[in-house]
């Protein structure tokens, strides 16, 4: 017997996407800093900005899953 709505599965899939995206960004930021430690603060700033964009896309999917729950969008 399955309970819950498929919207939660959709939100979980979006979280996978966000995890992969931010993981790659963090990984390449670490590599960049390892190559050139003097550029660390610039690289960190850019990493945070890029991570915010990737997170925004995952949150678009979360918003859609809110709209798709059984009681349809923010009861």
């Amino acid at each position, binding site marked *: 017997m399955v309970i819950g709505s498929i919207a939660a599965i959709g939100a979980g899939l979006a979280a996978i996407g966000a995890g992969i995206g931010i993981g790659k960004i963090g990984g390449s930021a670490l590599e960049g800093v390892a190559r050139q430690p003097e550029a660390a603060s610039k690289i960190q700033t850019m990493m*945070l*900005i890029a991570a*915010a*964009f990737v*997170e*925004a896309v995952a*949150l*678009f999917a*979360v*918003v859609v899953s809110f709209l798709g729950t059984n*009681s349809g969008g*923010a*009861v």
Partner: protein
Amino acid sequence: MHFSHILRSKKNILSIAFALFLTFFSLNVSALEGPVAEETAQAHAKETERKKEFDISTFILHHIADAHAFHLWGEGEHSVGIPLPVILWTENGPAAFMSSEFHHDNEGKVVVERGGQRFVNIHEKIYIASPEANEHGVFAEVNARHEVANKQPLDFSITKNVFTLIFSSVILAIVFIRVAKAYGKRSGKSPKGFQSLMEPVILFIRDEVAIPNLGSKFERFMPYLLTIFFFIWFNNLLGMVPFFPGGANLTGNINLTFVLALLTFIITTANGNKYYWSHIFKPHVPWWLYPLMIPVEIIGIFTKPIALMIRLFANITAGHILVLALLCLIFVFKSIFVAPVSVLFVVFISLIELLVGAIQAFIFTVLTALFIGLAIEEHGEH
């Protein structure tokens, strides 16, 4: 009296900071003790539709949504709060009263009469009350899916979000007008006090955001960019404060972010020069791609501000939902031993939320500057 020696030792500063820290986060937890007490009291003698368990999603959605009063503590009939005016426009003219007349009722059981018309409050939406109560004591027609069929008057009330909007606008206006005047009074001298706090941030916006994107015409748009940045940042911070002036989740309200994105859209479109429009209607692609590219570009004019709107709304709302859900774990598991783990997680997530609040304000500003820059860009590149 000199108290500055108190702050001189590092240990004291750490103790004071930690005490303030604990105060904020313990207030967060104590605000939630109400529902558990109420659930056990009502489990003895209530209608069958009232669930005996703690309904976490209703709780969270209720705390994120707008409300007609600031709820301070207590639950149900005994809540203590700050009531706000309810201002309605019905077919027979305006009606206004304080939300305390509903006596903290959210289910539609208390009717307020004004000027011959009767109003009822169901889940913070005001409806015209039905003449008689239905079988649950609610003065409205509610169908099985909890949708209400009564008519709603136009609601112009001062709700929590409206109050926070006015409050934060007044504070921002006071602070920045003082800073601006201080520059005039102290021209030629180095900045002092609040000026020196604001100056690096304003220069950062000018040098990293405005000039790279807007080129030489940045001064025209600096007021708008600075307003957007400080408004969003200040409201994000206010939303993280759990008690009175900050109890409302303003930037998590999609109507507010819609207006901000609409302003960006208006400014971008109004300042578009002929290169901007020619890139949209005559993109630099082979002619047989026009039926594809032109609709894509036209849709692109609208999706960029819509993405701005949803990005800010979703980030802030997701943060609040996460904090509330972690705190509600204590009540879902019904055990006090979950509390240290839960509060620790909440501290961690709240710190991330502070960072996210600043980053989202910055991203909104950067993207706005980018879009305006695209619109006013001179000499097409080809």
